[in-house]
């Protein structure tokens, strides 16, 4: 909790180039990923990304309810991003707010291009994301975990989706913003991609960045996504070690 400050700290990066949580500028927080943690779901994953703790379940393809939601030529992908009341420093009122509705939507759009949805017409694939603890960057952690939960469910995919954010903090471009940096930094740029073909499936930005800064951020995100991709693949294969 030490660096979860109520007021903006004077410096988010110190004179030695270290951030509040002791990381270097282009250092990822530690990522732990576990596949198949839930019994009932068709696929599931649990991710710890820094202090973010997120659990994802995939149900489906399954019969769709209500029936009129059925699409004639593909499965309907539905995502629900939800934060537990105790997941934030101040209690979050349970239930969907506008932020989580938007996040549910952009996460869905980030995962959708990776799936062969046309294989399962008229069905639903439901992705349930529960943020148990948040420390900045929950959407990229959610996407990273959801994509392997989908693979765990045996849903045909073109590629996994890896995600990471970059941003601008104290005038410097940094990788993987924590909550203080997200809150007090100058810009936040979450990106998700299918690493095999380097296709961007999620990109959002808020804050202010020049085009050069944007390009640099994009580059460090791509490199990070490649690393995260390896973590994802390892976690998937780990499940089947006997």
């Amino acid at each position, binding site marked *: 909790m030490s660096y979860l400050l109520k007021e903006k700290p004077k410096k988010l990066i110190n004179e030695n180039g270290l951030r509040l949580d002791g990381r270097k500028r282009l250092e990822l927080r530690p990522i732990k990923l576990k596949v198949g943690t839930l019994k009932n779901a068709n696929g599931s994953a649990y991710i710890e990304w820094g202090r973010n703790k997120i659990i994802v379940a995939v149900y489906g393809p399954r019969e769709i309810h209500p029936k009129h939601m059925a699409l004639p030529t593909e499965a309907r992908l539905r995502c629900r991003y939800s934060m537990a009341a105790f997941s934030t420093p101040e209690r979050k009122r349970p239930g969907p707010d506008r932020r989580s509705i938007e996040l549910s939507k952009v996460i869905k759009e980030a995962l959708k291009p990776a799936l062969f949805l046309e294989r399962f017409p008229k069905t639903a694939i439901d992705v349930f994301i529960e943020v148990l603890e948040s420390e900045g960057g929950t959407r990229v952690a959610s996407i990273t975990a959801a994509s392997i939960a989908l693979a765990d469910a045996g849903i045909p995919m073109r590629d996994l989706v890896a995600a990471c954010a970059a941003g601008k903090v104290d005038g410097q471009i940094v990788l993987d913003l924590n909550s203080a940096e997200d809150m007090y930094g100058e810009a936040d740029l979450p990106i998700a991609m299918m690493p095999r073909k380097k296709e961007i499936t999620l990109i959002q930005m808020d804050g202010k960045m020049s085009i050069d800064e944007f390009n640099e951020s994009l580059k460090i995100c791509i490199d990070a996504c490649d690393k995260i991709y390896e973590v994802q693949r390892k976690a*998937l294969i780990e499940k089947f070690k006997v």
Partner: protein
Amino acid sequence: MKNKKRKTEMEIREIVTPGQKISPRNKRMGDNVFVEEGNIYSERMGLVEVNEKRVEVIPLSSVYIPSQGDIIVGVVQDVTPTSWVVNIFSPYTAYLPVSRAFQNLRESEKLELNKKIRVGEVLVAQVEIAGYGINPILTLIGKRLGRKRKGRLIFVNPAKVPRIIGKKGSMINILMKETGCEVIIGKNGVIIVNCEDEEKEALIHEIIRKIERESHTKGLTNRVEKLLDEKLRKCKK
């Protein structure tokens, strides 16, 4: 401890993840692979099976998508004026039309379908009609099809069914021969085990779970045979 050691010695076949490149495009494509820019990729978590001619991926997990000719185990869920609605544990609910269950039904009987086959009954049926995004039509007309009133149900991931059946039925035949029990395996991952003796039923359950867990390892049939042997000897004692 001993057990654990044996486990680590098992040989695992190569596991691929979605989007992983398997081979250049110079082979016939089997299931669960796709082509992009001259290469063949896996579209699922699974085991690669590749030889000079053909490449495919055996999935480690899947849901059941009905296909014509499949033998499945289902549970009657509802009755309509002309058919029974059957849960086949798939995204697509199945229908069993009256004509595919009884061939000569009297008019009076047709008005009381709910008494002919009741909600909750377990059926072994064949998929007669299935297609893209279509609710499949089942039939009970055929050898060994019909209602089942005895035994226990075991649910497995449909992806594991081929391993539980084994090559040309090798695994299932060993199970049935050694235990003397009836084992019906639905393509949809629902299994009916029917034994005289509960201990044997429990043993079959244990073995099915073992196959499910270790389906991606080599030499599984031998290990199952050995385990069966040991356990059955204990049963006799």
